[in-house]
């Protein structure tokens, strides 16, 4: 079991010497407990502390890097079982398969389709991560050519899936790109001997937890270090169960022998591959190999992945700007709030509930709520006046009246002074907006006297 901050603190010198860079030993202990610092940062630590904490601080799920450079993919290195406990760090990787048995045209077309699996969503590019080259030809030389062509054509890290002799043929040209080797079940020792000298990551395939443990130990004994486990499920329920078992063994029980990122081959006739992928994205699949290449399949999976692997510790923001609510006309009221998404959606739905068409100005406050942003100096008279002049709101409405959240009523004077707009102080609680907006006299939003 992981040690608590207090248990770690008791092992530390308790002198608050600050050599670790933290103000107190307890603060340092909290960082160790959170996996954000290591005992090696504490020079005066006792040997006992080093021994106990060195083991406790190692990540429960090792990190395996596939590929190199910008598109390198990181598998594993997770610390919690549930996203809300902290966050998930490394998104499930998608590898789209390609067969070395395809003729040149079909091969080129398949690569083109893989490259097209890239989408824009919420300001991020969503794309598949790897190409899985399968040795279906049984010809090592053909496999090596196909692997090189896939690398060349797609520019993505590779999963090389085939017998060891085929893998060996591909390595001379691709070994420096850190491909992930995936020999068939039973060839883990031979695979490990291929992977070890080049320091390459290796998929170990075996049925069941016990089988995996034996195979992983054999691969380790043969010198492989960066291991990925494939429990070879035959069905969707089995895939889900194995994925959950393996992750729980790693995080909760800290069973080092089977603590590895996981790979699941959902191609090659695996039943219901789309459904299986949609279950394994939230439930611990580190790498999913798919034969699917239809954007209609991949877009929902990539969207799901984006949602699951968003850091819940960071406030979700909406884009700053002018949001019309209802059929807003130039004489509709203008309200302002911050870009914390919860704040925005609450205020917006309360405006909608009023049935009064309006414009909502959303200020960029780093995703903070109104009072927090005010306290941090990000929602101030100056910043609001700047938004009034720079957002283009003046051109969208015929009046110069702004409704300010009641919680920051004190900003009204400054805003009026700096912007020349008239400020109406709105309710403190957004929930009072419907009543407030319905009672507003229309004259409040008449064009200014010129």
């Amino acid at each position: 079991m992981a040690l608590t901050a207090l248990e770690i603190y008791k092992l530390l010198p308790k002198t608050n010497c600050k050599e670790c860079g933290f103000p107190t030993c307890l603060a340092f202990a909290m960082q160790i407990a959170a996996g954000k610092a290591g005992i090696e940062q504490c020079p005066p630590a006792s040997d006992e502390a080093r021994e106990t904490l060195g083991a406790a601080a190692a990540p429960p799920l090792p990190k395996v890097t596939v590929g190199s450079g910008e598109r390198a993919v990181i598998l594993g290195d997770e610390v919690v079982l549930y996203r809300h406990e902290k966050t998930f760090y490394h998104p499930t990787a998608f590898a789209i398969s390609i067969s070395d048995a395809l003729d040149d045209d079909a091969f080129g077309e398949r690569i083109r389709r893989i490259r097209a699996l890239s989408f824009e969503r919420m300001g991020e590019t969503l794309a598949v991560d790897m190409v899985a080259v399968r040795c279906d030809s049984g010809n090592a030389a053909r496999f090596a050519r196909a692997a090189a062509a896939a690398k060349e054509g797609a520019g993505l890290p590779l999963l090389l899936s085939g017998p060891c002799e085929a893998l060996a043929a591909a390595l001379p040209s691709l070994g420096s790109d850190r491909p992930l080797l995936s020999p068939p079940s039973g060839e883990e020792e031979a695979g490990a001997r291929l992977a070890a000298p080049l320091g390459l990551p290796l998929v170990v395939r075996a049925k069941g937890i016990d089988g995996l443990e034996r195979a992983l130990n054999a691969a380790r004994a043969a010198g492989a270090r960066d291991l990925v486990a494939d429990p070879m499920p035959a069905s969707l329920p089995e895939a889900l169960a194995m994925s959950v078992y393996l992750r729980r063994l790693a995080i909760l029980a800290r069973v080092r022998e089977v603590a590895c990122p996981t790979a699941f081959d959902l191609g090659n006739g695996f039943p219901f591959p789309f459904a299986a992928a949609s279950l394994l994205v939230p439930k611990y699949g580190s790498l999913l190999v798919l034969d699917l290449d239809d954007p209609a399949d991949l877009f929902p999976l990539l969207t799901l992945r984006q949602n699951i692997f968003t850091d819940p510790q960071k406030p979700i923001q909406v884009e700053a700007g002018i949001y019309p609510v209802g059929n807003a006309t130039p004489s509709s009221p203008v309200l302002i709030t911050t870009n914390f998404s919860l704040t925005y959606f609450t205020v917006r739905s309360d405006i909608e509930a009023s049935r009064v068409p309006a414009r909502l100005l959303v200020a960029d406050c780093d995703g903070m709520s109104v009072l927090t942003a005010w306290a941090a100096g990000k929602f101030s008279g100056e910043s609001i006046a700047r938004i009034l002049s720079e957002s283009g709101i003046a051109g969208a409405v015929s009046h110069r009246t702004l409704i300010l959240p009641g919680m920051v009523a004190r900003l009204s004077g400054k805003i009026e002074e700096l912007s020349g707009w008239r400020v109406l102080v709105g309710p403190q609680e957004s929930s009072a907006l419907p009543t407030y907006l319905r009672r507003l006299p229309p004259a409040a939003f008449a064009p200014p006297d010129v």
Partner: protein
Amino acid sequence: MSDPGTGTIRFLPQGVSVPVATGETILSHAIRAGVPLLSPCGGEKRCGKCRVIVAGEAAGGNDPGILSGADLRAGVRLACRCRPSGGEDITVTVPPESLPAKLIAYLEGRDLAEDEPFLPLHTATGGRNPLGVALDLGTSTLAGALIDLVGGRLLARTAADNPQMSCGEDLISRIVYGEESEGGFALLRQLLLSGVEKVIAALLRSAPADGEIVDVTAAGNTVITHILYGVSPAPIRHPPYQPVFREYPVRTGEEIGSLAASSAPWRLFPSLGGFVGGDIVADVLASGMHREETVSLLFDVGTNGEVALGNNEFLMACSSSAGPAFEGGEVACGMRAYPGAIESVRIDPDTLAAEWTVIGGGKPLGICGSGILDLCAEMFRAGLIDRAGQFVPRTGAPFAETARGRAYLVASAQQSATGSAICFAAPDIKSVLRTKAALCAAADSLLAAVGLPRNAVERVYIAGGFGNFLDLRSALSLGVFPPFPMERYVPLGNASLAGAIGAIRSRRRWKEALALAAAATYHDLSSDAGFMEAFQRALFIPHTDEESYRTVLSPGGGR
């Protein structure tokens, strides 16, 4: 100081006597005798509240404009203007309406760790009677105590409003004020000093004639301490949110800007972080939790809420950023625990109307913290609000539709002293829930940060005047504190002042305060991912974890 007369003045019903000092008012005699007497204006002869009944020779204080003919015939005088003539014994009866029932809550504090021998740090005065002043510099209230450094006796205690209130109710507002107005921090400092001088002057009325202040200790939050030092606290509000000082070098009163204690060294309690100040260090000092092996939690429930967790091995503290709802702030009809405040509330389960008691009796002006807690707990018990704090429509319930939405009518316009109804509206409930949720979640976050379960906490200290008179059952049924068995809660009152007094009396305890502050860890809740979640859970009445609260509130208290 005036000449001692030959007679004595005896206060009833307290039964305390002090020698008459000719020329002094009855009010200053009362302060010297330790008799609590209402004087909201601070003896400035404005409020007419310090009514006493005088039997014996005394002159003045019979202002016909303030006192009626019947009052005068009954011997009622104003204590701030009436002076005994000196030669004879007189008896002064303090009627109940002149007793500041709860005001004392801002002063009275328990010092549970007071076992060190009396050994003050400073005593040298060149033959004069050495005195020490202990100060608690609060966001809303400035409190002080006068200690005789020869015998260690507590001579007087007094409190006054922090004059900075006019520049904002909470600390952030004051920093903003300081940053945005020309000479803002200078004015804040000036206001603070004027308040401090007023407190010291009031204390000195009880000082012996040859007394001289030779030592001052002050416990205050980080913002106020920075302002007192003439250093801008603005960095606290901007990344990386660090104060300029955590430890304050000793300065003389003259350097600080105090005339009343100009030659004394001023020792300011060190801060733990931007929003956990020396007041919390003084609280911990008075609670003695830093000496015990068992783990304790300490809540300081004031204008801001701070929480500390620890024992003799560790100490961690955080600011909960709870609002001032329990000090009557952020609540439309809220007020501080002054006369005229509703201090307790019961709701009749049949009529659904409120029954209340008012500090000092008479018609209510508003509701103070303990009344607000009672009211919310009672509204929930009576089924008038649901677990989320929303009003539940019920026939016959005294609801009113106000400009601030639906409200519960606590007192009608006829029943209130102001002539307008006292209503508790939906935003007021929200404000109370936010405040209580922040406190509760701060405690849960501290426990989670060090990895302790709730049941590891064996004692829960509640510091702050409010803790002296809150109804613990109401507080727990609302979920203000985590669900610990009732007997684990220990109210401390103004522990910050008690700690400051302790540090005047014993140089060892001052060292203890410095050491515990140096070893303590400041936990920043704004970077604690778990806090927001704990806060959301605590926004319900009493909490999403209803079961634990039911257990501690059941007969037997969950032991």
